C-alpha cells in the first residue's frame, strides 16, 4: 500500500488503462499540454502522444458526440468535461444520443464511453462551477452514474468504467482532489454497482455519496460519544443502485438518513427514501431523513451556509433517533 492523492489516483487509472488497451483515448478541453484544468491528465500526452490524447476546442457537444461515434466503431473514449455544470452544455449528446443509442438501435451498438467530470462546491466557484447534478443523469435509463469518495475507489472505479461496455458518467469531487488515501501498489478494480459499508453500526444507517461520505463518518464519531452507533454506507455508484446493501443495513438498524451534497429537493435521497418506504416500510421505526443542500443556486459568497456538512448529518441522525 502507498499513499496517493485522489487526483493522482485518477491519472494512474487513466495511464494504466491506456497502457493496457490501445483503443482507449482521452478527449477534452486542455487535456493535452496543460494536463487538464485540475491536472487529471498530467503527463499522459508525453507518454501516449497526440494521437491518443486529444485537446479540443471549447465544444462540449462535439467532445461527447465524437466519443459516441468513436465508441460505435469500437474505440473506448474517456472524455473530460471540465466542470460538471458544463454537462448542461452537451445535454442532448448525453441524454438523447449517448443514453439512447443502444436501445433505439435495438442493441446494435455498445457504447463504452466514459465522461469524467468534477462536481461539487468548496472552491467558492459560484453557481456555474459547483453543482452536483447526479440525479439528472440517474433519471435517464441507459447511463451509469458513479461518484467515488476516496482515492482507492476513484482509481478502481475509473478502471472499471473504462472497461464497461456502457456509458458511464464519472462524477469526481473537486473538493476531494487533494485528499490523500491508501491504495495498493498493484492493479485492482472496484466494481460498478457496489456500495461499501464504511463503518458498521447498529442504531441508524446513513447512506452518503461523494464528499458527504467523509462528513457522515465525522458525524458518526460525534454521535458515538452520545452512544449512537451509526452505520455509514458509501453508495459509490448511483446507477445501478446497490439496493441490497442499503436494504440489508436498514433491515438491521430500522432507521435511515440519506446525505448528499446536491440540492435536497428531487435528489437521489428522495429516490432512496421512496424505495425503502415502498419495499420495507414495515421495517422502519422512524421516518427517513434527508440531508442535502437548500433549494438555491450554489452561492459564491455564502457557500459555507449552503454546503451540507457533518453537523447536518448529526442533527438528522439525532432527529431520527428521537422519534
Amino acid at each position, binding site marked *: 500500500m502507498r499513499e496517493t492523492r485522489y487526483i493522482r489516483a485518477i491519472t494512474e487509472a487513466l495511464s494504466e488503462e491506456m497502457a493496457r488497451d490501445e483503443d482507449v*483515448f482521452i478527449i477534452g478541453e486542455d487535456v493535452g499540454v496543460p494536463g487538464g484544468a485540475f491536472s487529471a491528465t498530467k503527463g499522459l500526452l508525453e507518454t501516449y502522444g497526440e*494521437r491518443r490524447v486529444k485537446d*479540443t*476546442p471549447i*465544444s462540449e*457537444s*462535439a467532445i*461527447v*458526440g*465524437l*466519443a*459516441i*461515434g*468513436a*465508441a*460505435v*466503431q*469500437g*474505440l473506448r*473514449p474517456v472524455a473530460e468535461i471540465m466542470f460538471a455544470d458544463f454537462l448542461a452544455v452537451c445535454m*442532448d*449528446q448525453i441524454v*438523447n*444520443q449517448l443514453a439512447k*443509442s*443502444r*436501445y*433505439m*438501435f*435495438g*442493441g*446494435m*451498438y*455498445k*457504447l463504452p464511453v466514459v465522461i469524467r467530470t468534477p462536481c461539487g462546491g468548496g472552491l467558492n466557484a459560484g453557481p456555474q462551477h459547483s453543482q452536483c447534478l447526479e440525479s439528472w443523469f440517474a433519471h435517464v*435509463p*441507459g447511463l*451509469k452514474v458513479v461518484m467515488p469518495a476516496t482515492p482507492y475507489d476513484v482509481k478502481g472505479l475509473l478502471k472499471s468504467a473504462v472497461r*464497461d*461496455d*456502457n456509458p458511464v458518467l464519472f462524477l469526481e469531487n473537486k473538493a476531494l482532489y487533494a485528499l490523500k488515501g491508501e491504495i495498493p501498489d498493484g492493479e485492482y478494480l472496484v466494481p460498478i*454497482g457496489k456500495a461499501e459499508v464504511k463503518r458498521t453500526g447498529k442504531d441508524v444507517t446513513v447512506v452518503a455519496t461523494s464528499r458527504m461520505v467523509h462528513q457522515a463518518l465525522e458525524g458518526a464519531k460525534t454521535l458515538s460519544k452520545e452512544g449512537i452507533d451509526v452505520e455509514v454506507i458509501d453508495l459509490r455508484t448511483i*446507477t*445501478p*443502485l446497490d*439496493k441490497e446493501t442499503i436494504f440489508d443495513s436498514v433491515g438491521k438498524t430500522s432507521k435511515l438518513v440519506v446525505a448528499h451534497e446536491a440540492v435536497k429537493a428531487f435528489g437521489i435521497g428522495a429516490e432512496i427514501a421512496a424505495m425503502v418506504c415502498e419495499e420495507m416500510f414495515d421495517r422502519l421505526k422512524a421516518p427517513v431523513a434527508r440531508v442535502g443542500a437548500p433549494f438555491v443556486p450554489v452561492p459564491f459568497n455564502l457557500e459555507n451556509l449552503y454546503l451540507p456538512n457533518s453537523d447536518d448529518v448529526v442533527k438528522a441522525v439525532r432527529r431520527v433517533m428521537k422519534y
Partner: protein
Amino acid sequence: MGEKERLLKIFYSMVKIRRVEECLADLFSKGKIPGFIHVGIGQEAIAAGVCSCLEAEDSIFTTHRGHGQALAKGIDLNRFMAEIYGRKDGFCKGKSGSMHIASREAGVVGSNGIVGGSLPISLGTAFASMYKGENKVTVCFFGDGASNQGTFHESLNLAAIWDLPVVFCCENNGWAQFTPQKVYMKLEDISKRAESYGMAGVTVDGDDVLKVREEAEKAVARARKGEGPTLLECKTRRWFGHYVGDAQKYRSPAEVQQAREFDPVFKFGKFLLESGHISTAHVDTVEAGIKSEIEEAIAFAESSPVAGAEELFNDVYAELPNGRDLR
C-alpha cells in the same frame, strides 16, 4: 464498374427511393405504420448521387427524413420495411422505426430525430477511421434547419482543425420544418459558412444527380486522401409537408406546385433516355423490379412478429444485471 453501369445503378436507386417513399406515405395514411413518417420525395438525387461515391464500409448518418439516404447506401429493403413497421425482423428489432433507421452492415450508422444531433457523432466515426488508419469516409447528411444548431458550428470547426475524413452534406430544401429559409437565415448559400471554418465548401444543384455526384466525388476523395472535410450544400425542394399528413397551410399552393416542377428522377431518366443509355423498355423493367421488391418487403414486414414484453427491458444496457430492472 463502368460509367454506364454506374449511371444505371444511380437511376435504379433514385426510382427505388421515390417508389418506396410513395409506398410508405400510402401505408402510413392507411394506418399500417405507427409513429411519424417524413418523406424526402423530390430530394432523391442527393442521396443517390452522394452514396454512389461511397464504398460499403464507409459510414453515413442521416436524419428524420432519412429513408432515401439509407436506401441509397444499400440497406436491405425487407429489414428496412420490417423496422418501419416496428417488427422484430427490423434492423433494430422494431425499436427504431422510421426516424432512427440504422444498419451496421450497410454503414448506416444511424438516423437521428434531433435536428443537428448527428453532426458531432459523425466526427467520431471519422476520427475512428483516422485513429485506426482505416481510410474510411463518413458522410453526415443534415438539413438546412440543422445548420443553425450549435452542433453545426462545433462539428465543422473540429473536423476542420483535425482534417477529419468527413463530408457534411446539407440537403437544403428551403424549409426548416414550417419556416422558410429567408425567415431564419440571412445567407442564401449555406456552403459560404465553410470558409469561416477553413474548409472547402460548395453549393450544387441538388436536383441534378450528375452534378451532385461530381462534387461528392471530389469531397469524398479529399476526405479519403486526408485532406480534410467538405461542406457540400445540395439545393433541392421539398414536395410534401414536414411529415406525412402535414397540410402545409404555411406554404402557398403555387410554391408547392413550382417545387414539383423540378423532378430529379424524371430529369435524370429523360437524360438517360435521350443520351441512349437506356430505353423505355429498361425503365419498365426497373419499375417492375422495384415494384416486386417493395411487395416482397411489405409481405416480409407484415409477416414479421411484433416484439413481446420480453423486449421492453432488453438493450438498455450491454448486460442485464440483477434481473431485468437495473434501478
